[in-house]
């Protein structure tokens, strides 16, 4: 799976400034990419552009050699799965039924989920440590539980590229660790591409192969965590005074 962005720009209708400004990068192999940046730097907008929720105002996004606007929406949805930052907490639906809807891009107009689809949904719940939630309703769950169910919805679609907008938010520490392991398996063993947004630099640095840093709508850094995480870069992009220490080959950011 290859994804290329060529000077992608997006301006929200009526907004005075652009939300994403001339961003270019290329993903050529399965890898785990963490997008970092301060609030309002354009991270979520970039995810929406990649998931085809928004169309670029300028520039092009090419997936597997074809401009993404030229893909059939359902074909694209089978390739690329997207977990939005916020999901409606009031959907009165059982978790398993919600996860089964993750198979929707594979269904014909009048066809129904097969037993295999249901099996894949159960498997996806299990991978997110959410099997026990299957029969509970989404509107009766905690934020972290709901997050895991929605992540399972994305995985049930078996996309080649997985876009996660703040998957960590609302997760407790143990589930954050489980998620990190799951994402590594998705990339290393199943050869999928994972692109995620997180504000936790240390968590991101620990699991990502590559980090992209956005500042004021522009891509300011693109490289491995060890290349990106320097006190100078962190100060320039996040306005944060921090020390960076190295331990067991990993970099840690310690705010001063």
């Amino acid at each position, binding site marked *: 799976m290859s994804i290329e962005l060529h000077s992608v720009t997006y301006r929200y209708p009526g907004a005075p400034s652009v939300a994403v400004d001339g961003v270019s990068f290329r993903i050529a192999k399965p890898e785990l990419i963490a997008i970092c940046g301060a609030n309002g730097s354009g991270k979520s907008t970039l995810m929406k552009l990649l998931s085809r929720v928004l169309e670029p105002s300028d520039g092009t996004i090419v997936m597997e050699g074809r401009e993404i606007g030229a893909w059939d929406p359902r*074909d694209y949805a089978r390739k690329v799965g997207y977990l939005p930052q916020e999901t*409606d907490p009031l959907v009165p639906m059982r978790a398993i039924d919600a996860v089964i809807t993750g198979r929707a891009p594979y269904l014909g*107009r009048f066809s129904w989920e097969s037993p295999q689809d249901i099996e894949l949904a159960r498997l996806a719940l299990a991978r997110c440590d959410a099997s026990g939630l299957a029969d509970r309703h989404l509107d009766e769950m905690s934020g972290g539980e709901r997050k895991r169910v929605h992540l399972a919805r994305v995985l049930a679609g078996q996309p080649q590229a997985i876009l996660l907008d703040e998957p960590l938010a609302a997760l407790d520490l143990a589930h954050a660790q489980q998620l990190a392991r799951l994402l590594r398996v998705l990339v290393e063993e199943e050869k999928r591409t994972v692109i995620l947004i997180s504000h936790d630099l240390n968590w991101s640095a620990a699991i990502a192969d590559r980090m992209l840093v956005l500042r004021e709508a522009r891509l300011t850094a693109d490289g491995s965590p060890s290349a990106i995480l320097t006190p100078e870069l962190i100060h320039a992009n996040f306005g944060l005074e921090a020390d960076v220490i190295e331990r067991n080959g990993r970099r840690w950011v310690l705010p001063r």
Partner: protein
Amino acid sequence: MSARRDLVRGIAVLSLILVLSILFAVSEGAVGVSFIEALRGDQRARMILFDLRLPRVLLAAAVGAVLASAGATFQTLLRNPLADPFILGVSGGAACGAAIATVIGAGRLPGGVPIAAFSGALGATLLVLAIARRHASVDPTRLILAGLVLNAFFSALILLALSMVRGSDLTVALHWMMGSLANPTWADVLLVGLAAVISLAICASMAGDIRLLVFGEEDAKSRGVSTEKVRVIAFLVASLATGAAVATSGIIGFVGLIVPHAVRMIWKRDYRLLLPLSAIGGAALVVLADLAARALIPPSELPLGALTAMLGVPFFLVLLRRATR
């Protein structure tokens, strides 16, 4: 349990209830006649059963199917369990159009009243959507408040329009505002029957996409749904079908609230099930409600819309409490 098996089972159960309701409603009435007499060739029995009662019962079924399926569609599109053609003001807009058309004499033109009702329903839907768009669907009660105000406005317009005509009879207003299935023609039955079949077919063909809208616009879009197109078509179809129902029988409220909710309590919350099951259940409910309207206190007829409101208000209050919890 698979959704498809639920659907087949639901359709079987509800269809049986509908057929029994229709047979019961046709055979019951102020004058005692039986199917056996009619089948033996008794002209009077045939006339009462097949020319007087049958069109009325079939119209009731078609109106019920339209209103309940429109309710299911509005609820799913707006992600609001309280949405119903009446509560949103769509029925009120249609009745207002129809009443004004009657007053200015456009009712004598062929198709005049239905076209006016369509326009009224569409206008009301656009107003509701304009209000809903600004505040998204975060606050379900805001939409209901808008519908309430629209309904008050449309009722006032109906009454004003009728008062301005010299020598007019305000009971005509009652027909539009409280609903009645009395004295339908076969043309009425055909109009609403077609509206029911066409609107169901179109919404069913998009059901797989519409059901994904419960998770929100962006979520559905990222799963390959052309959300704007689906929304526009589904709103248009549900509004026009509501217009057809109101053009023949006035405002019969709460059917679109009670039926989808009852269906959801028994079956799953998937629009692919909700739509057809609501349609059949709605047909049965209005057939039975109309039977009650004409048979409870013979020979006088109770206003059908008042009866459905009696049933619907408790439902509404329970749902309101849950939605604003």
